[in-house]
Every structure is written in structure tokens, then in C-alpha cells.
């Protein structure tokens, strides 16, 4: 990487072509990460306070999410699996 090296415009154009946009749906899913993390925090707080919910969550995560009013979004499920004990 020679940032100070003079560069011709043909090379600049080649480098611009190296970075096409990622698919829009991927970008949007990644941008929603904070909302997923907040939903996971809510679920884990509930599990902390309610032993019965905690048991259901460990036994059947997706069903427990539905019961708690959350869509079992795969990203939420994945986040919870990683954060639950033994995950």
C-alpha cells in the first residue's frame, strides 16, 4: 500500500471496481444487529427473573420466544444460543 505513490487513473478505476456493494438484504440484516441484541437482553433478563421461563428457554428456545411475544428470528435465536449457559 503506497498511499503517497502517484497513481494513474486507470489503476484507480480498477481499484474502485474491486469493491462492489454487498447485497442490500445482507447490509440491512447486519444493520439491525443492535435491535437483535436489545431483544436478546430483554429475553435474558426475563429468564433471570423467571425460573419457569428459563427452563422453557433452555428446553425449547423458539417456543419460549413465541410465548414471550418475540418472533423467533434466526439472528435472535443464534444470539441467545451463544449467550445462554452452555451456548
Amino acid at each position, binding site marked *: 500500500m503506497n498511499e503517497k505513490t502517484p497513481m494513474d487513473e486507470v489503476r484507480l478505476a480498477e481499484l474502485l471496481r*474491486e*469493491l462492489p456493494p454487498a447485497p442490500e438484504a445482507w447490509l440491512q440484516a447486519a*444493520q439491525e444487529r443492535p435491535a437483535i441484541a436489545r431483544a436478546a437482553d430483554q429475553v435474558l433478563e426475563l429468564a433471570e427473573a423467571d425460573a419457569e421461563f428459563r427452563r422453557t428457554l433452555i428446553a425449547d428456545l423458539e417456543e419460549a420466544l413465541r410465548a414471550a411475544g418475540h418472533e423467533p428470528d434466526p439472528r435472535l435465536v443464534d444470539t441467545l444460543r451463544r449467550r445462554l449457559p452452555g451456548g
Partner: protein
Amino acid sequence: MDWASVSDGEVVRACRAGDDAAWRELVERFSRYVFAIARAHRLNEADSEDVFQETFARIYEHLGRLRDDDSVRPWIGQLTRRLCIDKLRAAARDPVPEDGSEEHGALDRRLETIDEAVSVREAMRSLSADCREILDRFFCRDQSYNTIGDLLDLPPGTIASRISRCLGKLRAAYEGRSGPASASGEA
């Protein structure tokens, strides 16, 4: 907010403070980099998407561990490369290029080119929004003069000269910038 003038380090600090708009900017800013690294490893589309999402999930979870906020780019690069290698090993579909092999050398050169391309994109942030858009549409999205003319309400005959002018400005901006941070700052 116009994020173009905001440094990577400032975006990271705002993300850490819980600013959702900053997080969206961070994803937007590094999405092409992560996507390009996954493509360089020749992952299939499903695996590329997994790596893409997993990279941003880990960035979100571990942003607090970054020792130097301005080193976010090399950290993201390392993280993405590691996840690509893990994916190749797990799939056992394509052999992971061995250190010192010709294939490994080709991959390294490809990754160096991608890093250089990211530096060019960083320089692009100092250009006007109009220049950024026309260069992006023509070179990165591969749109024709006619498509760009229709979308930006410009006569197609003027597109080539605008691209040339903006490319000249980009060249000046790129040659005038200082180098990026090179060390990873993860704790």
C-alpha cells in the same frame, strides 16, 4: 448527519456509546470490505453471507475490546479472514491454501489489492456527494452512461466528462491523504 467527514475511530466511539445511526454507518462503511474478502476466498453465496453476518455480529459484541479505535479496519480485516478460513475448513470443500503455496501467495496479493481499494474508497469520502455517487454507480455498480443519466437526470453525453473530472479529484485526494492505521488493536 453527514458521516463522510467522520473518522473510523469516531464512528467506533459513537457505536460503543449506543448510537444506532453510527452502527448503521459502520456496517455501510465496511460492508464492501467484508464482502470483498469473502469473495477473495471464493466462498459460495451462502457461506459468504454467513461470514458477512458473523463478522458484523462479532464486531458488535467485541467492539469494547478494541484498544485503538482507529485500528478498526485491520481488526475487521483479520476477523473476516479468520472466519473465511474457518468456513473453508468446516466445509472441507475447498482446501485452505497452505502458507508459502502459490495459491496462498495469490490470495495474499488479492487481499493487498482489496486493502488498497479500501484506501481509495476512504479518499473518496472527501469528494462531493455528486462525485461519490457518479464514481460509485459507474465503477462499483457497473451502470451504463444511459442508466446513470436517467437516475441522476443528466444528459448521457456529459457523464464521461464528469466521471473523468471526479476521477481526477479522487486521484488528488488519494495522493494527498496519510496512510491508514496498520496495527490491530484488539485486546
